[in-house]
């Protein structure tokens, strides 16, 4: 395959990955990695290096819109990012001594199981917000946003400690495997902390950029960030993320949750297959 074809295929793939990723709060690796490894014959390490750039592109490309519309909850994001970044550093430190096959099987299975509560909540539009009390109150984990019909939605977070533990797991996972952090972040805010779906995915969108930036140095130094691969990925993903962010603003929570359930299922299957030696 000549370079110009290679660039074009990746550019178009990345636009789709950016649209999807920015809506459901993940980095788009779920789309880009299989295309790179299966279709273009790229080594999995380069694919993960490209995924890191894709995550940062999705996060920063969509954030311009999310910041303006005040969807991202910066307090929730920063509080949880404490655990995620610390987890990512620990994950990277122990990566050389860990059997990633077993890990992928375990985490893939957890994601698959989490599909059940996600699907059970599929029609939920605005969650019944719990009272602001305890640790959530002291940490000020509350917020509001404007829905598509103009209604102001006030919400409070619950169980911040549970959220923090989930986030540490998400962080260790990104540090170890370089993928899969976004899905865990959304699940943590959606299922444990009971935030509205839009707030969960856009806050995850903010967080994945920070976590990916934290591990970017290592991938750069190893030479896993291949310019030929990341150029079309970065450009495509930025365009896709800007489109996706505008779509999210106009969508209701049940639509976003359906898209997330789909991404969750594919991510889980990918991880389980990968542990069986099928690198997707």
């Amino acid at each position, binding site marked *: 395959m000549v370079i110009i074809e290679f660039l074009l295929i990746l550019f178009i793939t990345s636009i789709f990955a950016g649209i999807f990723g920015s809506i459901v709060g993940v980095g788009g690796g779920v789309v880009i990695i299989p295309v790179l490894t299966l279709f273009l014959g790229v080594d999995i390490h380069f694919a993960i290096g490209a995924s890191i750039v894709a995550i940062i*592109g999705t996060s920063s490309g969509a954030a311009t819109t999310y910041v303006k519309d005040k969807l991202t909850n910066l307090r929730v994001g920063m509080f949880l990012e404490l655990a995620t970044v610390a987890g990512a550093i620990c994950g990277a430190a122990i990566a050389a001594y860990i059997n990633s096959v077993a890990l992928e099987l375990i985490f893939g299975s957890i994601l698959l199981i989490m599909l059940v509560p996600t699907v059970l909540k599929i029609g939920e539009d605005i969650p019944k917000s719990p009272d602001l009390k305890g640790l959530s109150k002291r940490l000020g984990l509350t917020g509001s946003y404007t829905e598509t019909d103009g209604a102001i939605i006030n919400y409070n977070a619950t169980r911040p400690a549970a959220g923090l533990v989930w986030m540490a797991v998400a962080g260790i996972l990104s540090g170890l495997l370089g993928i899969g952090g976004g899905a865990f972040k959304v699940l943590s805010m959606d299922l444990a902390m009971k935030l509205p779906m839009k707030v969960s995915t856009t806050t995850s969108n903010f967080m994945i950029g920070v976590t990916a930036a*934290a591990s970017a140095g290592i991938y750069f130094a190893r030479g896993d960030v291949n310019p030929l691969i990341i150029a079309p990925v970065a450009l495509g993903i930025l365009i896709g993320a800007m489109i996706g962010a505008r779509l999210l603003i106009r969508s209701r929570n049940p639509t976003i949750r359906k898209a997330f359930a789909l991404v969750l299922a594919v991510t889980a299957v990918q991880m389980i297959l990968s542990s069986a030696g099928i690198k997707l």
Partner: protein
Amino acid sequence: MNLKDPGSMTAVVGSVLRYGVLISAVIIVFGTLDLIAASGSADALGSIAYNPDRIPHGNFDVSLSGLVSGLIALQPYSLIELGAIVLIATPVSRVLISVFLFAAEGDKLYMVVTAVVLCLLLFSLLVTPFIPGFQA
């Protein structure tokens, strides 16, 4: 820009993200056009060869001196790497500005939380690549 006004700080966050993304994209577009002009019809296979036994794994320079000399010569790979570095810097600057954002709101707790996140982030991004145990 008033550092004590949360509204104007949020606007600063917006501008940093917008311009960071724009500058990065423009640099990468130039690098890619440069690459297509130089070797668009060459086979992609040689450029994606992965060498598991040595660092860096790819057939491209990742040293700072290599990046600087490549940029002076307007090498396509160096331009794309610079664009990627600008992109990586956008979430870092967002966290940095958020420290000031919380300070402007008079929120000491989150000023500290965000400052800790920033320190962990900078440590992970800039220091861990030089610690041998992290070079798995």
